[in-house]
């Protein structure tokens, strides 16, 4: 068998037993998210409490995982959300080494069920599967846990583990893989509820591919002709000898004179790496500088990232200012993970250079959060903590003694230990501050008398939806298109298909002309100069989520894929949207077209939507699920909607947008899949299921 392994592993923590089963019946769902969602659908009854013994966790990879296709080292974990309204299906996506190791063990998926009698970890080394005692690890940080298990089972094993946040059953908890690769969505709580401290993976088996020569040629084509930098930004930030354009906002930050300043043996210049130089493309993204600012250059050791990825988006820094403050002075992460709680401080204490105080506090908070296994929910936890502080609510949720224990002046003076003062109480599990790590919906439920309707609707929170999910590239990105990509999910959207286009660095006219070829005139508005909804935008938004789901199932990294654009002028900057289908064909030996692969990905979306309808318990998704907060309509109050200078939405237009989006997927006016649509995708059993629940 090529691509897939054809096997899935079932581990029961209650009995300590495991079983190997065929995974072939799930191939219609590609793998990864699709496979994991279908297994949850079949095996976890609707209405199950996420932390109940009957609840399950499914981690899955796809036919492309482990083939060395660029950015194919991603794993998807599916489970019921503990932190958003309706406790519907969510996915966590994690990189690092996990995906390749699971494939090497010979499995497309692992189903984790039951509850261990005491702290336990799962060890999978090829075919050898066991549930081991983790009593000695409970209470340890994720770093300590990983080191202990690597010492015991080999320095190269992959370890996924939880910290205090998961152990203490916080909704906003994650699982950390290796260094700083986080599987969020509240997964840490599900691990904690199952007494599952960690998973150890080490695999030696092959991923068989039908045509290795074609695959290697494709990899070279993708890296030479299609890929740019992180988020597939195809324009460098500063002018380069080969480049027609430059754009200060992109992630192609590497350029002559910018270095990995703290590299062993002296700075390494990131230089020029023109298209067609795949052996230099790892220097294109100097992510530490992008995330922390120019001051980070001299502390940058190197870029790191996931297995098989040539982009390297994790900025690895060594911050000597943390000597004696944290167990180690090095850390790497990307985007918000580099500075998750730095916003708790009003000021920063610079030591040597302007800006190094903020850098130090950012890395400090990242080290703490990862060791606790605390999930920031794309900044929501930080926003909630600040919301309560700024609105004088902390005094109301704590006793006077608890409140006075905290030195709040540190926040004003920029003493970064304030972050630890807060976070150690958050992860405690019993302290009132722990209640702020439930996710915005449950925070609102508990404190609605204090919060009224303002909190969930506030621009300080920037949720995409009142179910308590954070906006993750929404209306600030291509207007209705960006916001629509969020509503599919029961957590933050994480769709990067669209933002990779708008952030590519290419002039707007080039972006528009290329995407209009695919989706029609009017699909892409000018930044902050939006027009009313139209059908082309609905097609564009659908493409965004279809490709995201394809990537989470195949697997590929949607933080880079798809290849909509190219950095090559001679291609007219056009990418190749059939690249995934070409990879699928080379790997599996069956010829796939772009349309066929998109259809398979859409099947996964249809299933996901039907599962969400079941969890909501109503067909009226328009009014119960797909509801965006008031701030989206009220932002920039002095600028009229649909004029230059605002990203605000309009209520009537949003309802129009929802209707057009639903039509694209074959859903009814309420946003629920019809029988005809479900049967078109071979989901007749799901239609019957919905009908039996009066949801069709």
């Amino acid at each position, binding site marked *: 068998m090529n691509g897939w392994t054809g096997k899935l592993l079932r581990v029961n923590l209650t009995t300590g037993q495991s079983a190997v089963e065929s995974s072939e019946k799930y191939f219609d769902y590609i793998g990864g998210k699709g496979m994991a969602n279908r297994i949850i659908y079949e095996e976890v009854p609707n209405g199950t409490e996420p932390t109940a013994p009957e609840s399950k966790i499914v981690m899955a990879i796809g036919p492309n995982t482990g083939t060395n296709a660029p950015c194919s080292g991603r794993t998807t974990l599916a489970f019921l959300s503990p932190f958003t309204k309706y406790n519907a299906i969510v996915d966590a996506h994690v990189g690092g080494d996990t995906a390749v190791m699971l494939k090497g063990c010979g499995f497309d998926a692992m189903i984790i069920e039951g509850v261990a009698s005491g702290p336990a970890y799962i060890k999978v080394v090829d075919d050898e599967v066991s549930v081991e005692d983790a009593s000695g690890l409970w209470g340890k940080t994720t770093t300590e846990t990983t*080191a202990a298990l690597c010492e015991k089972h080999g320095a190269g094993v992959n370890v996924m583990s939880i910290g205090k946040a998961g152990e203490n059953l916080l909704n906003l908890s994650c699982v950390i893989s290796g260094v700083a690769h986080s599987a969020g969505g509240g997964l840490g709580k599900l691990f904690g509820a199952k007494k599952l401290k960690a998973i150890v993976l080490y695999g030696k*088996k092959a991923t068989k591919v039908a045509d290795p020569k074609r695959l290697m040629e494709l990899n070279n084509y993708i890296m030479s002709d299609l890929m740019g930098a992180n988020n597939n930004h195809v324009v460098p930030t500063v002018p380069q000898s080969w480049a027609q354009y430059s754009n200060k906002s992109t992630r192609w930050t590497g350029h002559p004179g910018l270095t990995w300043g703290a590299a062993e043996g002296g700075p390494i210049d990131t230089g020029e790496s023109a298209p067609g130089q795949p052996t230099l493309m790892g220097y294109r993204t100097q992510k530490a500088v992008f995330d922390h600012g120019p001051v980070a250059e001299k502390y940058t050791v190197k*870029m790191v990232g996931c297995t098989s990825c040539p982009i390297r988006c994790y900025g690895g820094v060594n911050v000597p200012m943390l000597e004696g403050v944290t167990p180690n002075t090095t850390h790497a992460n990307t985007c918000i993970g580099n500075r998750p709680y730095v916003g708790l401080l009003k000021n920063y204490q610079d030591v040597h250079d302007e800006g190094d105080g903020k850098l130090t506090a950012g890395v400090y908070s990242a080290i703490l959060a990862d060791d606790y296994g605390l999930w920031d929910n794309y900044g929501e936890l930080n926003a909630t903590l600040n919301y309560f502080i700024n609105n004088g609510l902390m005094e109301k949720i704590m006793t006077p003694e608890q409140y006075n224990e905290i030195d709040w002046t540190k926040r004003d003076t920029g003493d970064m230990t304030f972050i630890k003062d807060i976070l150690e109480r958050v992860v405690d599990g019993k302290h009132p501050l722990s209640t702020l790590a439930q996710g915005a919906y449950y925070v609102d439920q508990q404190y609605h008398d204090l919060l009224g309707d303002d909190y969930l609707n506030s621009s300080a929170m920037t949720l995409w939806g009142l179910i308590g999910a954070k906006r993750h590239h929404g209306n600030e990105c291509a207007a209705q298109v960006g916001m629509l990509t969020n509503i599919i999910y029961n957590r933050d959207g994480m769709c990067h298909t669209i933002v990779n286009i708008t952030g590519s660095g290419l002039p707007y006219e080039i972006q528009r002309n290329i995407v209009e070829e695919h989706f029609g005139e009017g699909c892409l508005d000018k930044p902050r100069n939006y027009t009313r909804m139209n059908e082309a935008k609905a097609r564009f938004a659908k493409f965004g989520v279809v490709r995201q789901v394809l990537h989470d199932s195949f697997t590929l990294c949607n933080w880079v894929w798809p290849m909509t654009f190219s950095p090559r002028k001679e291609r007219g900057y056009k990418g190749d949207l059939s690249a995934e289908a070409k990879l699928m064909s080379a790997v599996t030996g069956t010829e796939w077209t772009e349309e066929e692969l998109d259809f398979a990905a859409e099947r996964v979306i249809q299933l996901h939507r039907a599962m969400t309808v079941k969890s909501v318990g109503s067909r009226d998704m328009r009014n119960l699920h797909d509801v965006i907060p008031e701030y989206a309509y009220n932002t920039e109050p002095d600028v009229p909607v649909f004029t230059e200078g605002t990203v605000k939405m309009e209520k009537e237009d949003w309802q129009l947008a929802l209707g057009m989006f639903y039509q694209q997927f074959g859903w009814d006016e309420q946003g629920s899949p019809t029988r005809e649509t479900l049967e078109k995708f071979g989901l007749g059993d799901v239609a019957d299921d919905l009908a039996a629940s009066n949801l069709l």
Partner: protein
Amino acid sequence: MSKGIMNREYTRREFMKLTGKGMAGVALSSSLLKLFDCTQAQAESGQVKVYPNSEYVLVVNKAKCTGCQRCEVNCTLTNDGKAQPYLSRINARDNFQFGPKVSENYLTAAGFFGNWSVEPATCHQCENAPCMLACPVGAIYPDPLTSVRLLDQDKCIGCGACVAACPFGMPKIDPDNGKSTKCIACGACVAGCPTSALKIVLWDEIAAAM
């Protein structure tokens, strides 16, 4: 033996005299530094490791290695027709987190959990190759032109003598075909490195730079 090979052999011996037990502490000419794409400080601090064979020098720059492991799968796609890092003739997967083993001071030692230094292990193409000497059927043999130790897959019986003999733990026996995965210096690992942490430098180029 051709004049070219004699010159190459002379250069190799001179280079070996220069680098001896490694690159740390070796003063390299600016031409060699340029050729190896490294700095004197990197060489002196032990970040640069060289694997000379009869054909070329494989330069491994630990400061540039980002642990992506693309080298490993490029190796097995090229040589084994499948993606199987375990069989790879270059190995970063087992040491990128902590170095070869977890030490007490792992937070400051090699690897992602420490100082980020990553050293992929690979075949040394030893002059008196223990794998070649151990092979009971002569399946590992020196290339008559380059002296690189090659593998005759038809002769290999998969006995594992090369695996046991290699002091660096590099060859494996492919469970699918029962053949050794002894490195044949094909260079696929180098071609796939996105930060040029791996580099092949030919002896002729070194001769010109020395």
